[in-house]
């Protein structure tokens, strides 16, 4: 039988009768073995996105979503995963908003859930539909902080953490990985949640800059990415720019992912589209509004949206053209720099996409 003693209540509530499917995310010994076998050589790891996805994403892998939903998130890598027809992936992230359309493409089949949606743009009706149709199975429910602590535990080199989050909620009843236990040092009753260290199979991280060896520089919210990179069996760095190693050593003081985690490096300018990229570009806000307000409402709409934006583009350059090309690039750079306080303030008002008004522009 299984190696892990999962919460039976959660297995029942989630109707999981094949708990072996849960193992890889918490299988520390396996992840450590994989890490030990990695080629440590400091070599030029640059390949194309197509090659990276073909080589490093296997059907059924546990994929960690990175960045913050649509901030510095590796969305163009998700799109390539969909284009290559990868199947039956498990997806985890905090947030992990992007799995919704990946389910429609058949790429994601299993969900470790902390947040689905796009904030004020409305609830994700596509996810509801996919769930009801049995196209996605939820394997575990989480809070953002719970996933963050599980990944951080892996980076700290600990079997898990004792947390005071999620206690008493229904989340623990829908998460087979969690156990409520007594804090062993306290004499008084002190319920705590044991959160195991989390080890995804494959993690794409979109960085502002990286060298060809995989030292990657992150600017803006790093969210869970430093921990995720340390934990994940396979790590693919995609970057807006490939810089000389000396630039990282001398100039890039801040958050760095060390090169020896990285299996591959992909030069991928605009790789976070249609999300925003700190220092580089703001969101095409209407794209997300259209996704949530129009495309998510029916199977027909979401399929045509994906056909148009994912399968209808072969790479991020064609995607960028569809957003408005040079005009979009100029606006998006101005917007992000002004928002960050690096350009003079501008007017951020814009024409929203609504069902009755499609402005036809993305800035």
């Amino acid at each position, binding site marked *: 039988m299984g190696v892990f003693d999962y919460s039976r209540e959660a297995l029942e509530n989630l109707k999981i009768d094949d708990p072996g499917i849960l193992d890889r995310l918490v299988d520390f010994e396996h992840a450590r073995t994989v890490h030990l076998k990695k080629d440590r050589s400091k070599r030029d790891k640059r390949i194309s996105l197509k090659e990276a996805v073909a080589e490093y994403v296997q059907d059924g892998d546990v994929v960690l979503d990175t960045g913050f939903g649509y901030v510095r998130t590796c969305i163009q890598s998700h799109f390539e995963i969909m284009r290559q027809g990868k199947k039956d992936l498990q997806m985890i992230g905090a947030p992990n908003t992007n799995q919704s359309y990946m389910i429609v493409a058949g790429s994601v089949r299993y969900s470790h859930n902390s947040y689905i949606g796009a904030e004020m743009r409305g609830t994700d009706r596509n996810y509801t539909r996919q769930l009801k149709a049995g196209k996605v199975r939820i394997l575990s429910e989480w809070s953002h902080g719970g996933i963050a602590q599980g990944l951080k535990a892996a980076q700290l080199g600990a079997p898990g953490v004792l947390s005071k989050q999620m206690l008493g909620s229904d989340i623990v009843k829908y998460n087979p990985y969690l156990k409520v236990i007594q804090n062993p040092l306290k004499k008084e009753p002190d319920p705590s949640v044991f959160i195991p260290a989390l080890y995804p199979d494959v993690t794409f991280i979109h960085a502002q800059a990286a060298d060809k060896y995989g030292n990657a520089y992150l600017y803006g919210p790093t969210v869970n990415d430093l921990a995720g990179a340390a934990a994940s069996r396979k790590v693919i760095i995609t970057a807006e720019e490939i810089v000389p190693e000396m630039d990282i050593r001398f100039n890039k003081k801040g958050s760095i992912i060390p090169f020896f985690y990285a299996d591959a490096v992909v030069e991928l300018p605009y790789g976070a589209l249609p999300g925003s990229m700190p220092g580089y570009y703001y969101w095409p806000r209407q794209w997300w509004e259209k996704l949530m307000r129009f495309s998510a409402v029916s199977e027909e709409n979401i399929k045509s949206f994906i056909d148009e934006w994912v399968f209808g583009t072969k790479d991020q350059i064609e995607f960028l053209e569809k957003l408005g090309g040079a005009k979009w690039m100029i606006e998006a750079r101005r917007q992000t720099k002004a928002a960050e306080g690096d350009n003079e303030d501008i007017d951020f*008002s814009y024409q929203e996409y609504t069902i009755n008004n499609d402005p036809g522009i993305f800035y």
Partner: protein
Amino acid sequence: MENNAPANPLEILAYILSAQIKDNTIVYVGTGLPMVAGILARKTHAPNITMVYESGGQDPIQGGMPWSVGGPFTWRKSPVIMEMAYSFGQCYNGYVDIAFLGFAQVDMYGNVNTHMIGDDFHKPKARLTGSGGNNDLTSLAENMVLVGLQTPEKFPEKVDFITSVGHLRGGNSRKEAGLLGNGPVAVISQCGVFDFEPETKRMRVKSLHPGMTFEIAQMCTGFELLKPQGEIPLTPMPSPDIIDILRTEVDPGGVFTSLPQA
């Protein structure tokens, strides 16, 4: 252009939320109205608050209204941007005084649901966002303030899924479950401001907005509301000056404080 229109319900909500914030405190804000309230408080009675956001941004210099909690306005020239685990860690360690969040449903004990509507987890009427940071803040923050519209469906006796524990089953049950802080201290809706009776921890009317009666508030609620002793106070309303600041400096685009057009 001068806009002298009376405050709309969203503007009133933003003001009441902001009034919960004391100066020189650390405030954890969610997306939407809580952001508006934080910025309004800063521009009025609480200029020295520090705002913290779940994406890791904290203490930004003043910019526009964030389009997302991960957006640049939440970390504009921040001295430090926290990783997510550390951001909630600050809350655990006692560096957050008050947090503001929304809900899809809230019950008589202040338990929050942002997961689903319906009784079948696998086939819900509607699947909602899930926790995000809602559970973390409600579990850890010293004081929690909830904001949302009040209808019998959104204020049911029992929520369809407990995303975040408020006062659980009342009495001492929140503490017994191992959670920190005071839990929800206020629920703010278009009807009024509610608190929780100290013994039973059941939701109680604290004040009603002008024009509102206890009977109307009760009709908007799926469980029996408790009444405070004596006459029910009126919620203080924003002065024209404050509404002006809200419209011209805080949310000039009306992103979060203009009523949706039909």
